[in-house]
Each structure stands twice: as C-alpha cells, then as structure tokens.
C-alpha cells in the first residue's frame, strides 16, 4: 500500500509540492502572528522569519525525499541534463549512434542466428535420455545391424532415420520433396504425437510389410494438402509409388536434423530404403533412449562390445577403420559430419561481431573522453562544490547511456531491416527462421549494457579522478602515454581499413576483367537443361537411353544446331573431384585430375576445341571398349613429350579406358582457377547426373521450345531449362556477393577508422587549447595552426597506410583464386586505397584542426 501511495504522490508531484508550500506559508504566518501577539520587535520578527525560511526549504527537500526515492530524482535530473548537453553536439550524437548502432545491430543479428541454429531443440520427450549412436565403421548402421542393436537390450529402445529425397506427383511436372525415412518406432520412442490423424504404429509399419503410409509436417500439409483436416487418408505419389497420408505433425514440431527439416516422414521398407537387407551397407543414423539408470559412457562401452561381436560374426564385410563407437547427446545430431565447420563459423562470426562492437565502443569512448576534456572546467567545478565523484560519474554515465540507447535503437532497426535484404537462397531459409520480432530486444539488451559501461565508465572515471581540480588549474595535459596508445589503435584501424579497401578494389578490378576473359568455351550460345531425377528414375542403361532420346529430339528443335549431354555445367557451380592414377603409374605428385561424363559431340556443342583425335560417338556405348578424352593439361602432366592418344588411363573407381582425343583446357570450377587435369568419359558408358546442353545462335528465345521438346519425351521429370549464360551466373553472383560483402566491410571499417581518427585528433586538440592559445597570442596565424594539426594527422595516417600496405601484401595472395587476371599486388588497387585513406584521414582531422585554429586566444588563455 505504501508503494501505491508513493506512486500517487510522485505522479501528483507538483500538486503535492504546491500544497506543502501553502502549508508552510501558513505555518510561517502563524509563527509571525504569534510573535506579534507576544510583542516581539521588528528585528526579532525578521530574524525568526529568516530562520523559518531556511527550515522551509529543508522541509520541502525532506518531504520530497519521502515522496520520491532520491535516486530516481537524481537519475531523472541527469537524463534531462545529459539530453540537453548532447543536443548541443549533434555531430557527436550522430556519429556515435551510428557506429554503436552498427556494432549492436550486427551482434544482435549474429547472436540471433547462432542461437537459432544452436538453440534448436528437436522435439522429443525427455531429451536428456536420448542419445545418438555411431558404430565404429561408419556414421550409420546398416538395417540388419540396427535390428540387432535394438534387440540387444543395451538401450530401452533404438530408432533409425535417413534423409532422402523423392519426386512427388502423379501427373504433370514432378516436384522434389525432402524426406526422412524412419523406423516404425521413431515417433513412439521420441514421444512425438500428431496434431491431426496419427503417427506410425510399430505393428502396421514393420519393414517387411512394405507399408505405404506417410506422416507430413504442418508446413507441407498447408502447402500441398490445402491445410484441410480431411486430407487424412489422401493418397500421394512419391517416387512413382502411392502413399497414404495418416497424420500431420504439430506446428511447433522441430526435426532432429536442425532447422531445415524434412517435409515428409516415411517408414523404412524396401520401397524407401533400397539397401534394407544388406548388412554391409550403412544406411541408418540411429537414436536411442538410454535405460533408466544407464549412463552415456556405459552405453558406449556396451555398444563397443556389441559392434566387436558383430565383426566377429560377419568378418568379411565390416571393417572398423579404427574409429571408435560414439554415443552422444541427441541434440548434437544435427552437427554430425560438419562439426568443425559449424564451430568454426560460430567462433568466427562471434569474434568478428565482438570486434566490430569493441572497435565501435573504443571509438565512442574516445569521443566521450575528448568531450570530457573539453568540459573539464565544468566537471572540476562540480567536484569542487561537493557533488562527490560518484555523483558526477553517475551523471556522465547517464549521458553515455543515452548515446548507447540511441545506438541500440538504431541497431535494432537494422536488425529488423534485415528482412528486406536480398540474400542467396541457402541463407534465406535461415533468415526466415530467425524471425526478428520482439525477441530481439532481450538479445540486444546485454550488448547495450556492456557497451554503455565500456564507453562511459572509462572517460567518466578519468575525468573525475582525484586532483582533477588542481590539474585543471595547471592547464590540462598534453600528449600522454594514454594518447599514444589511442594513436596506435587508430593506426591499427587505418591499416585494417586499408587492407579491406585494397581487397575491394582488387575484387572490383577482377570483376571487370572477368567479362573480358576467355573461359575456353562458348558462354553465349548455349542452353542448359538440368534434370532432378530421383533415386528411382532412369537408372544406368535406361538413363543413357533417355539421354540419347533427349539429345536426338532437342537437336531437331529449330534454331538448335547441336545437342549433347554431360554431368556438369562448366562454371555452373557443380564440379566434382575424384582420385586418379594412370594405369601402372601411382606416383604422380601434384594436381589430381577431375573426371566427368560427357556425350557425343559435347565439345563441339560447347565450342571447346578438339586438339587431337576424335570426340565420343554413338558407338562408344555400354559394352563397347571403354574410352576417354583428356585435356591438354592432363596430357602435358602425365604423358609429357608422348602422344597420349592410345594410352590407357585409370581412376580409383573406373576400369581402364583408352584415350581417344585431346581437347583444349577450359574453366570448370571457378573463373580464376589454375589449369587442372581432366578426364572425360563417355556418358553412355558411365551415366551420371543428367544435364543436356544445346548449341544455338540465339539461345534466349529457344528456352521454351527446348522445354517443350523435353516434355514430349517425358513431361513428368523435374527439369530446369535456362541459357548457359544464366546457368553460369551463380558463379558470377557469388563473386558479386563476395565483392559486395568485402566492400561493405571495407566501408564499415573505413567509417570506424574515420571516427577513431576524429576522436584522437579532437582529444589532442582539446587538451592543447592552452598551448594553442599562447601561440596564437604570440602571433601564430590560424592557417599555420591548422596546417600543423593536419600534418600531425597525416603522420598518423601515413603510418596506418604503410602498416596496412605491408599487411595487405602478405595477405592478398591468399585469395588468388577469386582474382581472375589481376595480380594480388596490383599497383592500381594499392595506390587507390592509399589515396582514399589519406583523403578520409584528412577529412576526419579537418574539423578538430579547424576548431583548434578558430579558438579565441583570450578564452583559451583564461583556461590556464
């Protein structure tokens, strides 16, 4: 109740004060009246009146202290004072708020993303009792091994799953969907229930019975089954087989495999898991629930014994490559196989984000320190009249808190704005899951608090340290060790910025060169058709024949001059690497050749020159002698000085083949790549991923016709037809994205360095006002003062540029692959960056220099 009343008094503030004032007046009048009644003299009355006045003021103060907690009062006072004071330096506010906003926003976003990925909790009952199990011989168990593990009694229950993809659809264009194949007890073991319908029961989905049931996620149900509750019992065709939908998972269900979850769950059977009966083929990732009193290490020991006994029973097919059994918490399942990558990414981004924030904080702290130096008289006065150090520090902290909160608001706005930033598709999925909403605020608050402390505490403490009054009287400080440290910091910032700017310029110049580079094949006259065949469509021979029919039909499309197949699109972002050794020779050091499958007339279709021999023909089919074509680098590397035609070559997975032709090198992976050795096999003899290439004089207008031609042969397969130029644009886009990112970072770095320099220069200028005043009084001219300050700044900038240049020379060779045709030491880029930095540095120091030169010498002297 007391608090309520306090609140009321606080709100009624003025009213209560006025009331009290009236009361006190009444009291005073009564005192006076009594004095007069008792015959007091004038003098007495006045004396008493004065004493009463003092009491009156004290009464009001004390009363106020009862109404409102004093600290709130002081706080509010500080806020008003701080706001007024900041309003007088708008430049400081803008610059600080922006750079703080950058740091806070960036960290908030990173934190959000990281916690989305790492905080992902798969839905399950009692998750701490569920573990992932990996046998020693692989990451996954084979199905028969899994069954044995389950009945071994080591765990209360064990379930397996496998990710996959199938094409969905009965008629018309098929669509690929992501699938999780699970054992019958998966949902039961994890305690997952459906929101509509039901999940699998162990009985009906026993693998032997080839069950045709599926459970779908809520998102899939909304997109494909119209969100209709009556969709249970509907039939969907997956991979050519009909399946019945029996249940829909809840909206808040989270998959075991991270925030990218599969859309459909199907039971394990021969339909969905072709290697069902093969004990030697690992196919299932296994989750298990520990026995009530078992520990993870006990389970691990038990499974180790179990796998050892399996190896003894079936010695010929299980080779444990010395890896031990792993039992780990289920939540870590999503990171398996890529742990290093995930950790590295997380650590790297946290460090980067932290660094940016720290740099911004240091900058703002510097600016505030400069400001505190300018106001040191005011601070000294406050301390001298007894404000107490804590009080002054508190008010300066409040001021910096105001700055930081402004920065925080800007940062939050940035984080929210990330919704509108275009991003490549893989990141886009993450972006959708990271819904920036109210949850951002709790993330941002710790950053804001930390920043406020770092930025505000140090300057405040420094400005109010003991003896500051005497210090001021003696005329302030010059360049101290503290300043040197800050100068060193700025030099570091400038060096980093230089590196980033050099990198940007290099990338931009290489972008320009790229359009002039010869990639070795004809980018402008090609059409590409990529097929999304799933694991059940057009296998082996059938695929080769399908390819042949496609090529025949597409070659007949008016405007198309040639057509062929391959398993890649050069520069299309999907090259593969294989191991290799030429028949009989296993000791060749250096680059390992890549292998691809291409069809007849492939090289002519893409405009790649045939140097010797011949291309593949229709006679090079399955059953005919194995043949291969190689490129000139291969011939040079492995058969130098000899005629490679007629030689035999062999890779680790292919039988030997005879070389029948040599082609010119062309770019395959990235534009900037070094020449590599390549072996091309005949697609008919070694069918792989199916991609059809066609050559046409004007490809843009023919995309639709090629699509129609494909539909004539098979209208159901998912296919994507585009011109060769647009198919290779991903590589270009990645470059462009990379350039933009580096450019953005460079700009940010430059901006922060600018602020840092401005801060240091301001500080130096402020602390030397007395000295400047004397010199001006003795006759130094304004331009001269200005020039000196600028020269001083230039010295700092030069040091930064030199340091940065050295660092860049060391680091730019690292990303040579991204620089097509530009030397990593390109002088134009370096010179440009140096000039830019010098200009920026001068601009940043101009304002403090001007301020210094425009001092009124009399005022400056008076500060002595």
């Amino acid at each position, binding site marked *: 109740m007391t608090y309520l009343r306090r609140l009321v008094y606080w709100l009624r503030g003025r009213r209560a004060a006025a009331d009290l004032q009236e009361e006190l007046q009444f009291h*005073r009048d009564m005192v006076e009246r009594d004095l007069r009644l008792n015959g007091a003299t004038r003098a007495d009355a006045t004396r008493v009146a004065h004493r009463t006045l003092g009491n009156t003021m004290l009464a009001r103060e004390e009363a106020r202290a009862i109404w409102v907690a004093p600290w709130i009062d002081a706080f509010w006072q500080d806020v008003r004072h701080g706001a007024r004071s900041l309003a007088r330096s708008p430049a400081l506010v803008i610059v600080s708020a922006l750079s703080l906003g950058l740091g806070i926003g960036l960290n908030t976003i990173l934190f959000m993303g990281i916690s989305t990925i790492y905080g992902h909790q798969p839905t399950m009952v009692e998750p701490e009792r569920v573990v992932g199990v990996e046998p020693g011989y692989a990451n996954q168990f084979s199905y028969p091994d899994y069954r044995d593990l389950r009945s071994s009694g080591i765990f209360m229950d064990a379930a397996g799953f496998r990710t996959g993809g199938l094409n969905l659809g009965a008629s018309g264009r098929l669509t690929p969907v992501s699938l999780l194949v699970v054992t019958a007890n998966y949902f039961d073991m994890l305690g997952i229930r459906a929101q509509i319908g039901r999940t699998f029961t162990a009985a009906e989905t026993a693998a032997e019975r080839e069950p045709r049931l599926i459970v779908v996620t809520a998102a899939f149900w909304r997109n494909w089954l119209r969100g209709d509750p009556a969709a249970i019992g509907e039939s969907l065709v997956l991979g050519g087989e009909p399946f019945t939908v029996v249940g829909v998972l809840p909206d808040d269900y989270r998959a075991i495999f991270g925030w990218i979850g599969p859309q459909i769950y199907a039971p394990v059977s021969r339909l969905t898991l072709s290697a069902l009966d093969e004990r030697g083929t690992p196919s299932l990732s296994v989750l298990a629930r520990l026995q009530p009193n078992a520990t993870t290490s006990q389970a691990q020991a038990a499974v180790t014994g179990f796998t050892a006994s399996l190896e003894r029973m079936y010695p010929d097919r299980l080779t444990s490559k010395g890896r031990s059994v792993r039992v780990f918490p289920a939540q870590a399942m999503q990171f398996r196989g890529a742990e290093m990558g995930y950790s590295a990414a997380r650590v790297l981004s946290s460090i980067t984000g932290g660094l940016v924030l720290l740099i911004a904080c240091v900058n703002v702290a510097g600016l505030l320190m400069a400001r505190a130096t300018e106001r040191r008289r005011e601070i000294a006065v406050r301390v001298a009249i007894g404000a107490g150090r804590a009080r002054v520090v508190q008010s300066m902290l409040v001021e910096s808190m105001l700055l930081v909160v402004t920065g925080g608001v800007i940062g939050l706005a940035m984080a929210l704005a990330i919704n509108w930033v275009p991003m490549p598709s893989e990141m886009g999925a993450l972006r959708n899951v990271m819904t920036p909403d109210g949850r951002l605020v709790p993330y941002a608050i710790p950053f804001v608090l930390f920043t406020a402390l770092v930025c505000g505490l140090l300057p405040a403490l420094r400005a109010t340290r003991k003896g500051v009054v005497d210090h001021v009287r003696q005329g302030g400080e010059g360049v101290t060790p503290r300043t040197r440290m800050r100068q060193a910091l700025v030099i570091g910032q400038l060096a980093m910025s230089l590196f980033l700017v050099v990198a940007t310029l290099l990338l931009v110049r290489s972008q320009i060169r790229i359009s002039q580079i010869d990639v070795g094949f004809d980018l402008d006259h090609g059409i590409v058709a990529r097929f999304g065949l799933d694991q059940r469509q057009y296998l082996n021979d059938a695929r080769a024949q399908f390819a042949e029919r496609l090529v025949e039909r597409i070659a007949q499309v008016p405007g198309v001059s040639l057509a062929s197949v391959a398993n890649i699109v050069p520069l299309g972002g999907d090259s593969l690497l294989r191991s290799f050794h030429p028949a009989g020779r296993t000791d060749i050091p250096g680059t390992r050749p890549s292998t691809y499958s291409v069809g007849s007339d492939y090289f002519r279709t893409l405009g790649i020159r045939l140097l010797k021999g011949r291309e593949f023909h229709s006679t090079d089919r399955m059953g005919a002698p194995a043949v291969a074509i190689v490129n000139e680098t291969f011939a040079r590397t492995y058969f130098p000085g000899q005629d490679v035609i007629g030689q035999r070559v062999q890779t680790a997975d292919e039988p030997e083949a005879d070389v029948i032709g040599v082609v010119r090198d062309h770019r395959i992976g990235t534009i900037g790549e070094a020449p590599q050795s390549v072996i091309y096999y005949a697609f008919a003899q070694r069918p792989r991923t199916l991609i059809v290439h066609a050559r046409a004089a004007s490809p843009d207008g023919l995309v639709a016709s090629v699509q129609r031609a494909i539909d004539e042969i098979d209208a159901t397969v998912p296919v994507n037809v585009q011109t060769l130029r647009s198919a290779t644009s991903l590589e270009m886009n990645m470059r462009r994205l990379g350039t933009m990112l580096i450019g953005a970072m460079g700009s940010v770095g430059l901006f922060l360095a600018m602020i840092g320099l401005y801060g240091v220069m301001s500080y130096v200028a402020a602390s030397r006002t007395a000295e400047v005043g004397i010199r001006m009084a003795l006759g130094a001219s304004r331009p001269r003062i200005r020039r000196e300050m600028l020269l001083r700044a230039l010295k700092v900038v030069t040091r930064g540029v030199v340091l940065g240049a050295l660092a860049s020379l060391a680091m730019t060779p690292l990303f040579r692959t991204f620089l097509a045709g530009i030397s990593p030491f390109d002088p134009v880029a370096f010179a440009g960056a140096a000039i830019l930095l010098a200009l920026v540095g001068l601009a940043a120091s101009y304002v403090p220099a001007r301020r210094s030169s425009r001092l009124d010498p009399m005022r400056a002297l008076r500060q002595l």
Partner: protein
Amino acid sequence: MGVTNDAPELLPGTLDLLILRTLQRGAMHGYGIAQHLRVTSDDVLQVGESSLYPALQRLLVNGWITGEWGLSDNNRRARYYSLTAAGRKRLAVERKGFDQMVLAIQRVLEA
C-alpha cells in the same frame, strides 16, 4: 540524509509517536501540533518545520494519518490531520515500544 530533529536527544521515531499521540486528541493542523508539543512540554520540545512536515508526510505515506484541507480559526486555508484506524494501532505499538525502551534505559542507568 535522515530526518533531523531540533529537540535535544530525541530517540529516533519518537517524533512520530508524539505526533500520533497529539492527533489522538483530535484533528489539528501542522502549526497546532507544533504548538501543542511546545506548550505541553514546557518549551522543551521545539519542533521546526524541517522536522515536522517531513514527519507528517511520512505518516501520510504510511497511511497512519490523513490530511484534509479546511478553514482555520482565522479563516485561512489549512490542512488538518487526523488519525486513521491503522494509525491508532500504530500509536499503541509505538507507545509500547517506547515504554520498553525507557524502562531498559532506566535499568541500565540504575544498575
């Protein structure tokens, strides 16, 4: 920053007790309370505004007294304070506490 007292060596909280006891006799304004204290104690207890009014505010905030504006005997606007039920209870408690304290002090002095 505590409440300072003009009266010599008043135990802390005694002022509250005195005010409550004064108001038990009937509603009064601030000056009246100060007068009553001075007169009844033979000029020993002279309470100034800087102690009286903050104490009154404290009692108000705690809900032991209420204040109402009215007209004084010379037709001036003044605020009259009166005890609440909670205030009565509080008075009894404080009185008991004070008596105990005094007894304890006496015992020590005469030991």
